[in-house]
Every structure is written in structure tokens, then in C-alpha cells.
């Protein structure tokens, strides 16, 4: 099973009611898989006329209380930003998978991490956030799906899975199992027909004095809670490290090999791997920076997450960036060279 199919099956196991999507490479295995499996499960699969329509179909199904998702790749996710902003304003849960490809524009179909800014800053108009996962293995991709649906339902917001072309196409053995759901609030806001009750309204237009700021304050309070409680981060050999590499997703797997080889050479390197990109592991990185370490951020972009690393380090230590873009993947040797360069002044 490739990563795209594995995440699709994981979503079905997590209780997916409906999938809406539009073809785009490199995520086409997801709609193809869903078109076969969703009818078998009594669920809904629909190929939309555009990504705009897909995210709005998600909007409609979500408003009726269903578990619903869509998937796309970078240019398609840009089109969906209108709907993602409306989902935020209307506080509707949804899961959106972005199997990133090279950009800007039509770019290419090779793997990239160039959509980090778009994903972690909300992406569309207005003051909002989405929870963002940056898994680095197919198993982690599988495991974050049920959690993504639970978080979407719990916080009534969009959760984005930020994968890339490699992860989507990669085949790895995975364990697929039904996980117990979190204790979730009842969807007592859903549109089900106002039988025997007052009407429900799902809206994001708030014209009355102060009403929109009130919504924004409510959203921000929710986001602060998520920042406190939902950060997931993996640390490897950080404790005694003099050089800490920060990387996520598929880039982090390459970094891990480079860090292991650096250790074999006697260089004290370590890895901090954010699993949630928002909320970002600011605290973990800030604490590592207290030890006066050097930070190297490695991304398949021209430098996006590095800004969050700098904000977390807050000037306490140097932060260096190494990245490849345009669909190129950094090699272990490239990263190891950068680690070696950084270790020279440390030895002197």
C-alpha cells in the first residue's frame, strides 16, 4: 500500500462519512481508492468539478455533523483556501490532506515542503489557524488520521495533513487498526432540520457591533489551548547535542541518517522533529536553545519553518538554514557536510 492509499484506509477506519475531491498529481491514489472503498462502506465518494467545489461540499456535509475530508496537492490547496477560511469562521470540523508538490504556480509534480507558510498561517483570509501534521513515515501518516478527525471534531476546525509526493507514493508496511476516539462533544450545532427545536444557523458573517471580534477572541482562546495541549514533537539525541537539526516530514528521515553518521564521526548532533507544525514545538526548541546550541534547519523549501525556529530560539543561539527547492530532495551527504561545517568552530 502506498502512503496515499494507507491514509485513505485509515480515514475510513476512523469513521469517514464522505470524501469529496478533484484529481491532481501526486495524490491521485486517494480519490481512486476512495471511489472504490467508500461505497463498500456505505459512505459517500464524489469527484467534484473543482477544488473550490470539493471544499464547499466538505463545508456542507460537515455542517450536517458528518465526518468528512478532502485531499489535494499544492495548487489545488490554494483554490481551497476560500473554503478553509469559511470553515474557520463557521467553526466547522474538516480534514484536508495536502500531498505537497513543487511550486510556485503549476511548479512540478516532485515532492516539496513549500506550503509550510500557507498551512501553518491559516492559508486564507482572516485571523485563523489550522492544526497541521507533518508526518515522516507512512505509519505516522496512518496514525495521524484518526487523531486529525478527533481534533477537528473536538475543536471544530480544519486539521491539515501536510505530506509530500514521496510520502504519498512510498510503500512501507503499516499496521491499520481502529483506535478509540477521544471523548468528543456532541454536535448539537449541526443542521439536521429543525424538528421540534429552534433553528440552527451556520454562518460566518457577523455584522453586529463587536460580534466579529467576539468570534475572533473565542477562536484565539481555542488556539492558545491547542498550543498548550496538542504539540507533538520527537527528539533524537538532543540532550548532549551541540548541533541540533530541526526538520519535519520526509526531510527529517534524511536528517536522521545524517545525524546518526555525524554521531559515528564523534560530532554531537541531534534532531528535533516537529510532528505538529502548528501548534509548533516552540517550548522544546526554546529549551534546547538555553543550552547554547547551534541550530540547523533543513527543509525542502527555500526556508519557511526556519522562521518559526528563529522565533523559538529568540536570539539565544545561531540558526542556520539548508534547503533544496523545486522538487529536489537534500541528500544525507549534503546535510552531513553542513553539520561538519557547523561542528568546526565548536571544536575550536
Amino acid at each position, binding site marked *: 500500500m502506498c502512503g496515499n492509499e494507507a491514509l485513505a484506509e485509515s480515514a475510513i477506519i476512523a469513521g469517514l*462519512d*464522505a470524501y*469529496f475531491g478533484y484529481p491532481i498529481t501526486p495524490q491521485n491514489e486517494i480519490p481512486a481508492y476512495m471511489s472504490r472503498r467508500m461505497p463498500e462502506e456505505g459512505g*459517500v465518494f*464524489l469527484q*467534484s*468539478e*473543482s477544488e*473550490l*467545489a*470539493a471544499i*464547499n*461540499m*466538505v*463545508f*456542507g*456535509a*460537515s*455542517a*450536517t455533523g*458528518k465526518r*468528512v475530508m478532502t485531499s489535494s496537492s499544492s495548487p489545488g490547496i490554494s483554490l481551497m483556501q*476560500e*473554503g478553509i477560511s*469559511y470553515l474557520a469562521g*463557521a467553526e466547522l470540523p474538516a480534514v484536508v490532506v495536502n500531498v505537497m508538490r513543487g511550486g510556485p504556480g503549476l511548479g512540478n509534480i516532485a515532492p516539496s515542503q513549500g506550503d509550510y507558510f500557507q498551512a501553518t498561517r491559516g492559508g486564507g483570509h482572516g485571523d485563523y489557524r489550522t492544526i497541521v501534521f507533518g508526518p515522516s513515515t507512512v505509519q505516522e501518516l496512518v496514525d495521524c488520521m484518526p487523531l486529525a478527525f478527533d481534533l477537528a471534531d473536538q475543536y471544530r476546525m480544519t486539521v491539515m495533513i501536510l505530506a509530500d509526493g514521496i510520502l504519498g507514493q512510498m510503500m512501507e508496511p503499516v499496521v491499520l487498526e481502529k483506535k478509540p476516539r477521544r471523548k468528543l462533544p456532541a454536535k448539537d450545532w449541526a*443542521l*439536521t*432540520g*429543525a*424538528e*421540534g427545536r429552534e*433553528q*440552527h*444557523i*451556520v*454562518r*460566518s*458573517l457577523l455584522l453586529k457591533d463587536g460580534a466579529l471580534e467576539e468570534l475572533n477572541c473565542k477562536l484565539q482562546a481555542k488556539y492558545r489551548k491547542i498550543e498548550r495541549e496538542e504539540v507533538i514533537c520527537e527528539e533524537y539525541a538532543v540532550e548532549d547535542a551541540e548541533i541540533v537539526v530541526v526538520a519535519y516530514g520526509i526531510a527529517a528521515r534524511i536528517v536522521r541518517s545524517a545525524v546518526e553518521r555525524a554521531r559515528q564521526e564523534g560530532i554531537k548532533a541531534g534532531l528535533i522533529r516537529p510532528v505538529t507544525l502548528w501548534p509548533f514545538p516552540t517550548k522544546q526548541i526554546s529549551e534546547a536553545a538555553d543550552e547554547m546550541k547551534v541550530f540547523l534547519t533543513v527543509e525542502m523549501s527555500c526556508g519557511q519553518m526556519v522562521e518559526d525556529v528563529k522565533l523559538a530560539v529568540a536570539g539565544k543561539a545561531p540558526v542556520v538554514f539548508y534547503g533544496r527547492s523545486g522538487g529536489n530532495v537534500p541528500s544525507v551527504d549534503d546535510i552531513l557536510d553542513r553539520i561538519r561545517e557547523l561542528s568546526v568552530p565548536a571544536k575550536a
Partner: protein
Amino acid sequence: MALVFARTPTLKDCPTHYCAGCGHGVAHRLVAETVDEMGIRGRTIGIAPVGCAVLAYDYLDIDMIEVAHGRAPAVATGMKRTNPDKIIFSYQGDGDLAAIGTAEIIHAAHRGEQLTVIFINNAVFGMTGGQMAPTTMIEQVTATTPRGREASDQGYPLQIAELLAVLPGTNYVERCSLHNASHIRKAKKAIRRGFELQVEGVQGLSFIEILSACPTYWRMTPERSMEWIEKDMTKVFPLGRLKG
């Protein structure tokens, strides 16, 4: 004394924000009466557009959602596909449905989604200040056609009902008008037919276009507006059943 007329319960007892002579109030009432007469309030979900009718949920006492400009047919699709037992309708203006939302309405109709669409055609963008809509008449002066719409520059009025009627996915297409009492009664019958087809589970999208006045941005009195619908608009947008 016997009660001979009462406000239908699904129409809320409150003043609307609509201008004098605007057709939205009448169209809302027709929808509300239909929902009550058919006894489907408890399983109906309405979709409000972007435009003057965005606040339709303030006047219609049913479950409602407000959506991005033009996207109502996609949102309705998401709702109906996951809730086939519910009655889903969208209420959209011409800026919403015939401009930015053309792809969504064409494809919802082309897929034969089981939906009822109420399309209010007043030949102008109302809420944003009276700009040209795709349905604006030739020579009609708007905020963005100060010399009047010219076909050579801005194209011809878009006849959406005719476009949709040729698609196999529509089961009913009718164009009505609100310019006098007899046409208001016809419009109500058409709305009822649209809802009935969905309740009966007849595959396909039912589409009711309603010519409706915007005296404010037509720069006419309400009375003159009704004449303009009857004498001018109906020449470009002929009334009657196109399908079903």
C-alpha cells in the same frame, strides 16, 4: 370572528432589511408558505447566498447555512449526498449563481443532484451597490455600466434557465415573476413543484428562476419596476415552464 389569513409560522415575525419594492420579501414568504403547507420544516435545510439575501436565516425559521459567493450548489451537494432524507434548497441571486457560481450550478445540475434551487434574477448586483450582473439588460445603467450595458463590450444577458433546461440532470426548470398577484401565485406553484419533486425522490435538480425587482438600483419607483419586468425583462427572460 373567523381568521381568514395569518402569517405562515416559518416566516419570522420581524421587519426585513430589504428596500421598498424589493422582491426578496415576497419570495421568502412563498418559500416559507410552501415549507409549512408541505409540512417539511423539520427536515428542510436552506442555503443563503452572498448578496442581499445573505440574512435570509433572519427571516426563515428553518435550519440554514450561509456560504461563500456562488458555492451554494456545491454546499447543497455535500449536504444532500450525506443526508438523502433531508430536503435541501439554495436561494441565490444572479451575481451569486450566474456569475461567480456558474460552475457550481452547472455541475450540480449536470450531475442531477436532488436539490431545489430558487434563483432570484433582478438583473443587478444589489448588496455591493448596483453593479452589472451577467443578467443585466442591454442599455441598462448600473454602477459599472454608466453608459448602459453594451453587447459589444459586456456581452448579452445570460439566460441561465435555458442553459440548465438542456441538461439531462435537471428535472424541472421554470421561469416566473413577482410583478403582479397572478404571477406571484404562479411562482408559488413553481416553488411547490420544485420541493415536491425532491420530496418524491425524483432524480434531478429542480430550478425555479424568479424575475424580481430592485427599484433602488434600477433607479425606478416600485410601480415602474413592475412595469419594467413585465414589458422589458420578460422579452429577454421569457416566462414559463422550460422543462418538467
